[in-house]
């Protein structure tokens, strides 16, 4: 047995695949997890994957009380597209995204998990809060708003043969990272974008932009049924602090935090700064909710 003992530090993160039926098609979805306790399902940003949460999963202050779980959405990271993908254009819809989250939580037998999502993941949290508050212990939206004005009007730049998709996605996203974020985690974050499949980021943005105007709906969210926390970085110009403020102002009981020295990717661009804001939220959820 001695030969099998690791010679170098092993992280607590483990990864597995789960078979899910989504929109009538079989999918093989990859997820990672670490920790024990309250399930905390983490939703990555558009065009990226669950690796964005690796710092959270390596943080004992989080994993001591929470079972942190992050899946790669189909078409992202290690989750393949469904069979037949080569003949279709990937396009994420709001309804499809909600179904993916509910199906995943059901498949893993998670009982009233906390869901934390960023960007499109933060936006979909608003729909979970509106439609399914009884299924969640608490919801946390990072860089989340009912609506964001676009900052480039042609997402075609993200998928065309004369512009390298990975390079342009990474370059566009680089401006959304705060100048204070450390070099290593900044470039880690961009690498995820550079690795995305052709057209996948663009397909995610369909949900964000074309199918994601919730301004007429967020007022119906009842935070007495499920607490809602909204945290946005001051350097995020895609989902600005004002966008989130507008949203929080229309949801009685929503808890708003503007995070300094953080951009659009709190958990991956500057995990040390982000945990200062997240740990109190997780403590509060642990103590106040059952």
């Amino acid at each position, binding site marked *: 047995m001695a030969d099998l003992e690791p010679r170098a530090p092993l992280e607590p993160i483990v990864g597995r695949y789960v078979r899910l039926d989504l929109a009538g098609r079989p999918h093989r979805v990859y997820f990672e997890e670490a920790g024990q306790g309250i399930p905390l399902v983490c939703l990555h940003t558009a065009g990226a994957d669950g690796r964005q949460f690796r710092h959270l999963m390596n943080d004992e202050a989080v994993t001591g009380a929470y079972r942190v779980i992050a899946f790669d959405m189909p078409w992202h990271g290690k989750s393949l597209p469904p069979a037949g993908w080569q003949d279709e254009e990937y396009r994420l819809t709001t309804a499809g995204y909600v179904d993916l989250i509910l199906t995943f939580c059901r498949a893993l037998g998670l009982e009233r998990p906390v869901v934390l999502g960023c960007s499109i993941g933060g936006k979909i949290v608003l729909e979970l809060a509106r439609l399914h508050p009884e299924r969640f212990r608490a919801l946390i939206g990072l860089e989340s708003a009912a609506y964001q*004005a676009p900052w480039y009007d042609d997402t075609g*730049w993200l998928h065309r043969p004369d512009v390298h998709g990975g390079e342009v996605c*990474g*370059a566009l996203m680089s401006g959304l990272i705060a100048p204070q974020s450390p070099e290593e985690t900044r470039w880690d974050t961009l690498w995820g974008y550079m690795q995305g499949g052709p057209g996948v980021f663009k397909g995610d943005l369909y949900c964000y932009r074309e199918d994601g105007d919730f301004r007429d709906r967020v007022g119906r969210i009842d935070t007495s049924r499920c607490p809602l926390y909204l945290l946005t970085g001051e350097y995020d*110009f895609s989902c600005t602090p004002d966008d989130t403020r507008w949203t929080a102002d229309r949801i009685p009981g929503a808890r708003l935090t503007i995070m300094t020295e953080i951009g659009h990717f709190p958990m991956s661009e500057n995990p040390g700064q982000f945990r200062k804001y997240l740990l109190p939220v997780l403590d509060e959820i642990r103590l106040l909710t059952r």
Partner: protein
Amino acid sequence: MPGMAESDVHTRITALPELVNADARLLRRGRYLTTTFLVELDDVQYLVRVVEGRIASVERGPFLMRPWSFAVRASADAWRRFWEPVPAPGYHDLFAMKKLGVARVEGDLVPLMANLRYVTDVLAAPRRRGA
């Protein structure tokens, strides 16, 4: 840098050749780009000639009939904020300034978007100077 004189803002653009050409990382990143683009500070125009990632020249206008591929236009004040060592939110990125309404990007965007990381790093290069 808040007290930076307006002439200093212009000096930063004219310093692009020495800033970029001495940076091996930038030269590698831009090695497939050869183009001339326009940078505007208020109504003062500069033509930046790039040859395989090197800044071959920066010429100050006015120009009468000179071609360029794409143009990046902003007020001198916006550029001054953009080049602060730690820029404020909204002034930390070209697209952030565009969304804020203080910068414009025009022309043939293909060379810009195909080399976006390089071009944004070139435009941000003066930030390191005097930091």
